[in-house]
């Protein structure tokens, strides 16, 4: 369900490390060219546009909802037909001027409002988890790769251990056993716990190869401390890899959160989450397909946008490196 | 262009005229080989010398028709009278490996790690000769391995490339080239990846094979010492252009071009005075930096 790390590994080392490190000389010029290339790339811009849209939707949800008229927790009994098993009145699941995306069968809640609030959950969890896993992954990957020895062994064993877990099942199990407050924090922690090893593994292998390079040797020869080398010499060379990895991790976590919510262990109702809405919509799929299609569409497009963005960034970095 | 005043005979094994190799990239068109001419007589040995980026490898790839994507060659490359640049791919495949064989620089990456060396030596033979059984081809492979002085060849034919040392692997590459008894062998930096002691052995092997089979040899290298051991004639390339051409004795004793002189000067000699570091600046030509 989450994009396996193997793909990220294969594809996230554009052209191989040597190419990445080689661009040290023309940094500022390359940066500007990169930005220009990025801004004129149609798929990247479209994706970024959609992402910004959803971000704004998430941030300003309370305001937006004031404009659209209905909150996410309000029931509108006038919009559903009690005689027909409470399906929404009107075509396309009850889309109307009042309810821009229609209403939920059974409860009559405004779908637009719930989508807006659901965006909060998706973005918060995914972005926080990405932030956390990136930090953990980079720190542990650097430590393991640079210092080697028992530090590397210890960290690698922990990583193997975590990766051997059937993550989804475990996450479901942990989340179901715990009480339901602070769900979002819990989701972020659990997802990050099983997610960081994949990033750390990539960072570690890149650090291992960078460590052998001449510029590291010369830094060491001129008396630089370990910390200096790690943060000033090696880390900057990893930036493009990290950016690509992080961007590609987000859609995975969006999917994971949605999946967990779909299975009922994500945020607790009535807090809306896109995954949960789809789960609720499943029984109604034959009579009210809009109910699952709308959150499904939003989910699909968000994951698509982040993946496309990551892909385009990686392609841009790769091609600029080759030219340099 | 300086130096050469030998009459080219029409009987040459290989005759290259006005060869240009260009690459089309997003940034434009780059010319990596610029209008070079040279010839290799039957049984002769030609050394192509130059720094990295001088276009010498591209020249050899152009002869074989193996230019990387985006590359195009023009001019004429006559091999025993036939212009290779005018041939279709199917005809080139028949010539490659059978009449012109090539040996590359890094024998470890040039051999497929998943198959035994016996299979890899034999496959050229089976591909070019029809109706050959696996067993017969393997015998040919073992013979080829023995020709290049690999001990216990029958057993070692079943070993994988990573089980051999660097020098042995290069011998295997030579065995692959030999197995078809080609008329011309092109060796692209065959000793660069090897230890100095092993280098001498490989060069001696190449010389021996030339003597025994009468095959022509093109040796590409940046190392003047290597060239002087093996080649009769030498061609010096720089920035895609040919700057000097002639017999090894002539060029070494009386270089006509400034660049050649500087190259020769840069080679340390046993009778040099100790204590003096001889540095000569070799001016950089556009396109040579950033390798």
């Amino acid at each position: 369900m989450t994009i396996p790390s193997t793909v990220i590994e294969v594809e996230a080392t554009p052209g191989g490390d040597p190419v990445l490190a080689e661009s040290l000389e023309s940094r500022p010029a390359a940066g500007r060219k990169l930005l220009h290339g990025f801004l004129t790339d149609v798929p990247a811009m479209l994706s970024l546009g959609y992402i910004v849209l959803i971000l704004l939707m998430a941030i300003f949800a309370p305001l937006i909802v004031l404009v659209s008229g209905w909150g996410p927790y309000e029931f509108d009994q006038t919009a559903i037909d009690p005689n027909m098993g409470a399906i929404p009145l009107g075509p396309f699941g009850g889309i109307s001027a009042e309810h821009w995306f229609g209403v939920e069968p059974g409860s009559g809640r405004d779908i637009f409002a719930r989508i807006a609030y659901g965006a909060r959950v998706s973005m918060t969890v995914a972005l926080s988890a990405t932030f956390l896993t990136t930090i953990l992954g980079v720190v542990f990957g650097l430590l393991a790769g640079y210092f080697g020895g028992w530090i590397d062994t210890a960290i690698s064993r922990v990583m193997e251990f975590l990766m051997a877990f059937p993550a989804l099942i475990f996450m479901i199990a942990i989340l179901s056993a715990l009480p339901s407050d602070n769900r979002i924090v819990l989701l972020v922690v659990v997802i990050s716990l099983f997610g960081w090893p994949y990033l750390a593994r990539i960072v570690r292998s890149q650090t291992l190869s960078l460590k052998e390079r001449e510029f590291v040797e010369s830094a060491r020869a001129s008396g630089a401390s370990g910390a200096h080398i790690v943060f000033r010499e090696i880390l900057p060379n990893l930036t493009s890899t990290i950016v690509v990895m992080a961007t590609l991790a987000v859609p995975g976590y969006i999917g994971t959160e949605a999946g967990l919510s779909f299975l009922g262990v994500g945020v607790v109702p009535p807090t809306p989450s896109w995954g949960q809405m789809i789960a609720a919509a499943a029984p109604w799929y034959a009579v009210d397909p809009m109910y699952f299609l709308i959150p499904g569409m939003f989910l699909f497009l968000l994951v698509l946008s982040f993946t496309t963005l990551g892909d385009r960034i990686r392609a841009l970095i790769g091609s600029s490196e080759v030219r340099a | 262009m300086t130096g050469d005043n030998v009459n080219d005979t029409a009987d040459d094994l290989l005759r290259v005229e006005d060869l240009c190799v260009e690459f089309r990239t997003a940034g434009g068109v780059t010319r990596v080989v610029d209008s070079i001419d040279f010839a290799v007589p039957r049984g002769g040995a030609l050394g192509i010398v130059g720094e990295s980026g001088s276009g010498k490898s591209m020249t050899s790839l152009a002869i074989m028709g193996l230019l990387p994507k985006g590359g195009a060659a023009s001019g004429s490359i006559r091999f025993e009278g036939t212009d290779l640049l005018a041939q279709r791919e199917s005809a080139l495949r028949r010539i490659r490996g059978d009449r012109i064989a090539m040996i590359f620089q890094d024998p470890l990456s040039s051999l497929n790690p998943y198959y035994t060396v016996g299979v890899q030596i034999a496959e050229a033979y089976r591909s070019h000769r029809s109706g050959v059984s696996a067993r017969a081809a393997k015998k040919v492979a073992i013979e080829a391995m023995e020709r290049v002085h690999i001990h216990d060849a029958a057993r070692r034919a079943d070993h994988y490339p990573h089980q051999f040392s660097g020098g042995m692997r290069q011998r295997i590459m030579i065995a692959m080239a030999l197995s078809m008894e080609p008329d011309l062998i092109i060796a692209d930096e065959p000793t660069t990846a090897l230890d100095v002691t092993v280098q001498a052995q490989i060069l001696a092997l190449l010389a021996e094979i030339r003597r025994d089979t009468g095959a022509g040899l093109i040796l590409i290298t940046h190392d003047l010492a290597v060239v002087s051991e093996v080649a009769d004639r030498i061609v010096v390339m720089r920035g895609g252009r040919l700057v000097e051409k002639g017999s090894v004795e002539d060029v070494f004793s009386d270089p006509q071009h400034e660049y050649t002189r500087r190259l020769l000067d840069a080679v340390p000699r046993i009778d040099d005075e100790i204590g003096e570091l001889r540095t000569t600046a070799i001016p950089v030509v556009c396109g040579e930096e950033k390798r």
Partner: protein
Amino acid sequence: MIRFLGSRVLGMLVVLFLVTLFTYVIFFVLSPDPAVQICGKNCTPERIEQIRANLGLDLPFWQQFWEYISGLFTGREYVVAGAVVTCPAPCLGYSFQTGQLVSEMIVQRLPISATIAIGAAILWLIGGLIGGVLSAVHEGRFTDKFFAGLTLGAMSIPNYVLALVLQFVLVVALGWLPFPQAVPFAEDPGQWFLNFLMPWIVLAVGYAAVYTRLTRANVIETLQENFVRTANAKGLSSSLVWRRHALRPALTPIVTIFGMDIAGLLGGAVITETVFGLNGVGKLTADSISSNDQPVIMAVTLLSAFFVIVGNLVVDLLYTAIDPRVRTAARA
């Protein structure tokens, strides 16, 4: 070779042990009163007492853990409503909610999960390989871009959304397929096939996209290798160059990943099974989580981890058979 194998098996056992311990600790720590949890929704005070006694819940943690572990190897006994129930080795527990031995529950459902996993695996492997090779051969041209877009979409759609879309389109709107039900193969092979078709497709789509990209990347990279240049320099036929020197090195690493993915799925495709209502191990997991049937949750977690870890080992061994470089290192 034996030593290599031995060290790997030992490592595997250690990891398995740690996973078991970790899982047990989580459940022990997280459930304040396990007896109530285990008892589930329709509980009576007598049952709670029974559970407490049966599972020795007043005993110290390590003793309870020991009971569990030893139960895995030697079996255990439970007292249920006065009667003794033997749980033969490996004893994965007893579900007080459903009144069944957990191992029986799992064994009943394994065939369905296996069917889903294997059918989907065949689909995604074939699809992925074909898509990847075609993309690599036509790199940069239309076919490549087409597959790039297709895989992007396929990777982005959550499989439950795809499941609902497919069901709506194929079953409700077009009526091409029946509502999925479990029909045994022996009864009606045709129906059996049609019923599994949608779950197979839904599960395979995401993996096929990943495999296409992976195959494409591997083939393109392999085509740059020096030994491919050597093969061409020897004048080998292009089909031989492709088979021996391009495809074989490119596709071999995919075997590893394929093995791991199948192993992961044997523990049950939770979401796919739930959406289609198929009674496999995955659905069992989902159901037991919502009804809080702890012995079952614990058991499926362990089983999944077991498959993944063993799968890892099998794949490693397979690699020694396939890659000559690893083979000689293993023998040394």
